């Protein structure tokens, strides 16, 4: 029986580039500073949490495919390469068939807004260099090009719950042998237009940007012999994080409210104990949190709220939630971690990760 292991995680967030920055920010437990973003036509700026500029500039940004790409692509590629780690070479040399699932809610909004602005002003002058970058799957395409892989890739659009749907699809692909492994990425970028739109629904909500990535691989995938490191000592064990389950998507419909959907999602995940962690999607944003708080009122284990510190990063935020859950298991602070995503306007979905021991068989 195959298990789906998490072989790597990556994050680019308002805390900085890399999992260490995310980990440090979550450990501090304080909301990160906001930045003012000008809103054309209004004197009052919008508040956002944006990704700090890297210093020194990340090497991958010099890739020719990224020359004109938008920030969302930079974030997605940064998180993806961190999650993939050394396995990137197996993808590039063709020995590992890597599926890519890229999840967004708003997507390449900066270039879309710029291109439409140019089209309205003077269509014949609208930039043909910008338009292709407005397409939802542009970041996934750039990533495949950087990794030189031609394996299946899906770009999924939906509310933050879609990242967990992406995990389920990726795990299925890997289990069924469609691919050897799968990288699931959630990413977003901020723009005044997006922030302006979201403020219509909740004024206390602060949009943020970045990406998170989870690299899934079946426990049984064999590293090519030439590249394999020393064999594990027979009789010893090592620990891995496995994706145990993704709940159903409980869609928000006329006959199923957000609160009901959240409760149904919660009912598909186990009761909590002291050694377990729940990573919530709540963000101390008033009524937006109510359904999720109510659904989890019985949870007796530990809790973590990444969005309360990082902001509403939409698809990136649910990826950060998963990365934070997996990271806590990797550090052996918990034996099990649940992720709860009660999305903005589509679905409630949950996931369960566990830390398991693998006994290395005698040769």
């Amino acid at each position, binding site marked *: 029986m195959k298990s789906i292991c998490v072989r790597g995680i990556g994050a680019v967030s308002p805390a900085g580039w890399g999992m260490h920055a995310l980990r440090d920010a979550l450990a501090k437990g304080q909301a990160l500073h906001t930045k003012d973003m000008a809103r054309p*036509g209004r004197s009052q700026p919008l508040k956002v949490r944006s990704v700090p500029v890297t210093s020194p500039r990340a090497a991958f940004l010099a890739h020719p495919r990224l020359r004109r790409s938008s920030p969302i692509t930079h974030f997605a590629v940064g998180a993806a390469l961190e999650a993939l780690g050394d396995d990137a070479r197996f993808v590039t040399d063709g020995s590992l068939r890597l599926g890519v699932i890229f999840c967004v809610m708003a997507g390449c909004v900066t270039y879309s807004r710029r291109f439409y602005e140019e089209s309205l002003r003077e269509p014949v002058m609208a930039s043909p260099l910008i338009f292709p970058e407005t397409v939802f799957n542009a970041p996934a395409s750039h990533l495949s090009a950087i990794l030189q892989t031609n394996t299946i890739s899906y770009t999924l659009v939906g509310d933050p719950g879609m990242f967990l749907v992406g995990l389920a699809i990726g795990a299925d692909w890997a289990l069924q042998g469609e691919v050897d492994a799968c990288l699931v990425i959630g990413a977003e970028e901020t723009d005044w237009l997006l922030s302006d739109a979201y403020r219509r629904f909740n004024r206390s909500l602060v949009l943020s940007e970045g990406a998170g990535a989870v690299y899934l691989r079946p426990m049984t995938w064999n590293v090519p012999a030439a590249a394999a490191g020393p064999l594990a000592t027979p009789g010893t064990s090592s620990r891995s994080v496995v994706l145990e389950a993704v709940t159903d998507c409980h*869609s928000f419909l006329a006959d199923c409210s957000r609160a009901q959907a959240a409760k149904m999602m919660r009912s598909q995940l186990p009761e909590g104990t002291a050694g377990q962690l729940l990573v919530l999607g709540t963000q101390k944003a008033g009524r937006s949190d109510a359904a999720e708080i109510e659904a989890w009122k019985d949870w007796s284990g530990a809790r973590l709220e990444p969005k309360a510190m990082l902001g509403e990063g939409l698809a990136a935020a649910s990826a950060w939630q998963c990365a934070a859950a997996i990271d806590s298991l990797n550090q052996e602070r918990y034996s099990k971690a649940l992720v709860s995503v009660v999305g903005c306007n589509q679905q409630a979905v949950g996931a369960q990760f566990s830390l398991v021991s693998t006994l290395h068989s005698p040769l």
Partner: protein
Amino acid sequence: VLFSNPQTAVRKSRVVITGAGVVTALGLDWNDNVEGFRAGRSAFQQVTLFDVSRQRVQHAAEVRLPSKLPSTFLSQRHCSRLDRAARILLHAAESAWRQSEWQPSKYLPVVLGTTSGGMSMGEAYFRQATARPNLHRQQAARVVYYQCQRQGLDIAEAFGSGGPVVIIANACASGANAIGHGWNLLRLGRAERVLAGGYDALSQLVFSGFDSLQALSPGQCRPFDSSRDGLALGEGAAVFALETLDCARHRKAKILGEIVGYGSTTDAHHLTQPQPEGEAAFAAMTAACQRAGLEPEQIDYLNAHGTGTPLNDAAEASAINRWAGQQVAGIKVSSTKGSIGHLLGGAGAVEAAVCLMALQGQWLPPTLVVRTPDPLVKFSLVTRPVSGRVEYALSNSFGFGGANASLAFRRWS
């Protein structure tokens, strides 16, 4: 649950189509489209939906959309908020639903492909937000109805059903990927029924985008013609009621056709240009046929992506030549984009519907306006409507970002 680990071994199910709806500039009804494709009709006109007076190209294939929507569980108030893309989608979905004779269900996955969802709502939001920043009227509704997932949820609600809504945005392969994903869900036992398809409406941003790339033909779209000079845009949708063969047989449903293969790959060559030899296209076609257990010579009709752009058609022709090998001269191929335009997220789904029409009616739709076929065309390019035996059909869809998908269908008899 969507996923659980560890899993038991899966017995793969066969997947059949029990309902189909299609909306294009040829008509809102399946029969209108059959008649139009069979007659080799072209449906282009001057764009009326937005201002194209300052664009290089000014025509497209617009759907003649009635103000009245089909009767569903959606309230009149809800319907009044739907944008053009959602309305086109609803017409197609309602036809598929009606034909399938399905009943409302608590678990009916909806898988849709689109490139731009409710883009016209997003455009309206932007125009008002910049021209009149302090006017808030209708803006909140525009934010909600712009989003693709809202259109997917609307489809679920329209038929009193629930379950996951998955939106695949793989550019112009989105519709084919959505059907392929639905096929996978059924075949792996993740669901017994899936509503799957693709849609897109014409929008100013996307039209300007293709025009800025000079990808639009200023004249006629002529797929695989040696002097082709670009694509033509269209709009439309196709939706299919897919279910496992066991499920369809159990309820004695009328089966329209079978999906037997799906292949999806990524062309990493360039964001907008295909790899000249069509490597990833070849891989997608090969994968779809391998899954179906078919050799190229068994494919009686291939609906090509055939956009009419110099680069796409050359790469696709190379891929078809390589895929078919020595049998290439016998492979019958056409592109229907010369009739209805390129439907972007709807293209893969509508062209899957064209394959189903060919399988059901035993005829092949033509590629319009081919004067001199490109020298790379080694296959049998169908340029006039013809009757013929069609047991298996293959549909190709390729998109920006190198998203490639092929679907294989079998006639149901």
